[in-house]
């Protein structure tokens, strides 16, 4: 069943609360910089939680050719983050786009529900409502309201548009897919794209995830779900994965695209290689006890032909949620508990929050960069261990001691995935 084709990662493009581009991103991880602040993108004062991981000074125009800029008008912010990260990934990979075979060039994204920008429905709404909550006059909406909405309104919010715009901007005519499994979408997209390359249906892939819930509609919904941290007085202390005082999730926004490539293709163009993707696994955690996490991790290890002791560190999902972190820690312990040394666990969300569909690739990028720098970043805000989370969370920069790491991702319904990457030497 295994293929002889090997898949390597040769580019990282990232737009993150910590910075834009892999150098700025790593620099912030190395210094332990906080990326979470009181929300500036809109006035959050009526929200129950009023902070998030926001990207400062992001302007998509900086990452798109002049001739293509008008297409930005039909891109919600999440799509713009995807398009910017894709351009940055191509730049980082050093590829000469003209030399790529477009039919062997694929695109795959993790994506989520895109909220409408409220003002786009403002005129239509005023025409067809009378101030009574829960009432819309659909006859008025249909007759007069529609004319007040931008004609391409719907296209701006379709979840597949990240991958569509990226394929159009870069002439990628190969396989194209969009995974919509919430927080685990990015890890699943990476897994699937690697399989497509391995089975010889593409040579070169842009694989990413991007999401922004830092807008009034998405944020109201997140507040209603009742799972957010309430530390409004100290946002920089709010995201504390596996730590005793954690009180909930912190929302962030961001996009990250990886260039994934057939090894021989990468060698032919003398590409710089970050890592090889050596294993993927996925499972469903039906009873919310971590069994799915364990099976996803074990199948990724098995596909890689590795033992738990071979893993340098686990790049955790680490939501900073009271229950979810305990389940995850238990699962990591089940897989790695018998290792000769406690496996270091690094939780990247402590820096920038939960990027939703953008989290998987963004967090993978942190460990990919760690391989090159020989150091695993600290997990921010890890002050007092929680006995319910019996794992060795990184407290400071730690030296890398082994060439492999494992990235785990999942979501609240139990959809789990894991990938294992190996440092390229």
């Amino acid at each position, binding site marked *: 069943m295994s293929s002889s084709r090997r898949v390597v990662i040769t580019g990282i493009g990232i737009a993150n609360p910590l910075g834009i581009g892999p150098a700025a991103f790593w620099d912030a991880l190395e210094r332990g910089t906080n990326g979470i602040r009181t929300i500036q993108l*809109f006035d959050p004062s*009526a*929200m129950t939680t009023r902070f998030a991981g926001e990207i400062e000074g992001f302007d998509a125009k900086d990452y798109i050719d002049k001739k293509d800029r008008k297409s930005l008008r039909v891109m919600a912010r999440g799509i713009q983050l995807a398009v910017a990260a894709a351009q940055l990934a191509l730049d980082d990979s050093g590829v000469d786009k003209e030399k790529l075979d477009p039919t062997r060039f694929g695109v795959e994204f993790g994506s989520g529900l895109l909220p409408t920008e409220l003002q786009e*429905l403002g005129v239509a*709404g005023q025409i067809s409502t009378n101030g009574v909550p829960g009432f*819309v006059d659909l006859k008025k909406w249909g007759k007069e309201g529609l004319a007040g909405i931008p004609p391409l309104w719907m296209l701006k919010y379709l979840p597949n*548009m990240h991958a569509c715009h990226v394929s159009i901007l870069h002439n990628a005519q190969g396989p194209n897919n969009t995974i919509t499994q919430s927080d685990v979408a990015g890890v699943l997209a990476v897994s699937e794209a690697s399989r497509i390359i391995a089975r010889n249906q593409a040579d070169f892939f842009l694989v990413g995830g991007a999401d922004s819930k830092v807008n009034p509609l998405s944020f109201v919904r997140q507040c209603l779900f009742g799972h957010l941290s309430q530390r409004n007085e100290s946002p920089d202390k709010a995201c504390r994965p596996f730590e005793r005082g954690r009180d909930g999730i912190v929302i962030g926004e961001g996009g990250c695209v990886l260039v994934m490539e057939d090894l021989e293709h990468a060698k032919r163009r003398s590409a710089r290689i970050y890592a090889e993707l050596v294993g993927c696994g996925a*499972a*469903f955690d039906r009873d919310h006890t971590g069994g*799915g996490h364990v099976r996803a991790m074990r199948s990724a290890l098995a596909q890689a032909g590795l033992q738990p002791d071979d893993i340098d560190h686990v790049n955790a999902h680490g939501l900073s949620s009271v229950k979810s972190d305990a389940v995850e820690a238990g699962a990591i312990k089940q897989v790695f508990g018998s290792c000769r040394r406690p496996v270091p666990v690094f939780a990247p969300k402590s820096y920038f929050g939960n990027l939703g569909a953008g989290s998987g690739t963004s967090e993978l990028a942190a460990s990919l960069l760690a391989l090159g720098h020989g150091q695993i970043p600290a997990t921010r805000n890890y002050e007092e261990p929680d006995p319910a989370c019996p794992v060795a969370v990184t407290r400071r920069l730690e030296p890398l001691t082994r060439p492999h790491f494992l990235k785990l991702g999942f979501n609240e319904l139990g959809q789990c995935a894991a990938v294992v990457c190996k440092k390229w030497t």
Partner: protein
Amino acid sequence: MRRRIVITGMGAITPLGHSVDELYRSQLAGKSGVAPIRLFEASTFPTTFAAEVKNFDLGGYVRDPQRWDNSGVNTRFALAAAQQALSDAGLLGNGVDPSRCGIYFGSGEGIQDFNHLIPLIAEGYRNRENTVDSVKFAAGGLRYFHPGREFEQELHTTPGHVADYFGLEGPNYNCLTACAASSQAIGEATELIRHGDADLMLSGGSHSMIHPLGVTGFCLLTALSKHNEEPTKASRPFDLHRDGFVLGEGSGMLVLEELEHARRRGARIYAELTGYGSTADAFRITDSHPEGRGAIACMQGALDDAGLKPETIGYINAHGTSTQVNDRVETVAIKKIFGAHAYKVPVSSSKSMLGHLIAAAGAVELITCIMAIQHGVLPPTINYEVPDPECDLDYIPNTAREKRVDHVLSNSFGFGGQNVSLVVSRFDR
């Protein structure tokens, strides 16, 4: 030798019936599922009709339907179609290893709380600045939105609920590539089994965009037919007077299984999934490539994957949306792949009867293809009255046709340029 993947169960909730048999019989009879919209007051919209699922009762399929009261029909249809497919495959209560059984859906989003969202936007809207007061909006949203119903709009809920209810603990994916989604899901589910990640996958799609914002969006794009005076005649793929697609809704589910796994448990085998191709047009967000570049490449990809020559294909279930551009370009693409054989292979569009089930379309159409292989009767394209000189293939006009077919090609092309083709074949030991 790569692992072979067979289909051992099917289920469907559609505008033409709530079972695979009823769906197929209605298609052979050339019935239309299209009628004036009843789900909401649509009488002043530019398009006032759609193909709705009628008289659906989740209680007929699951023990505790009230568990999904907050869910949209995307989840509710999916649960029912999944129950049918798993039961059809003899899997309910059967001792298969749950960790080797996964899900890959192309399921759409849930339905937004339109009646609360719009007044809240209107209340906070400031015309002069074209902005909405986020403080007012947030205060109202926290008060009026229902947390459970808001959560159920998320894109991962349908595969999550179905996995939970039926105990499928293997890989769990959902893709949303517009109108290609459930075909792509079936293709990638096949690849997961081929690779060994699972032995069995429940795959398909579920979707409804027949709600105020969905119909609004498509009307604004001028993508929908406006044949308001005669809805059943509105979806007319390949006919000269076609003027846009017709929205449908529903779910189609298939059990895909590794051949030896199916044999060991003595499962009935409907057909073999032999080919899958996926490409992108990489052309424009709003238009497909005029020469069908991506469509040609994905049909070729599916044929190559199946190891079949075009002449072996006995029937093509077209994407056939009834828009001017799609039907013309799809015809061009079929001719490019099939050459002279293009005029000999019957082509039809299920959308002429079902409307366009968006993310769920491909799965329901693949079920139709499998039934055609099983029963040797090909469903027609209804409302085919005036030939279009640019669409000059054999579209099985208006009447079903008896023909034994061994290999069938099904096309699904998504808005934004994702193309998927699947090949199903008569099962041959």
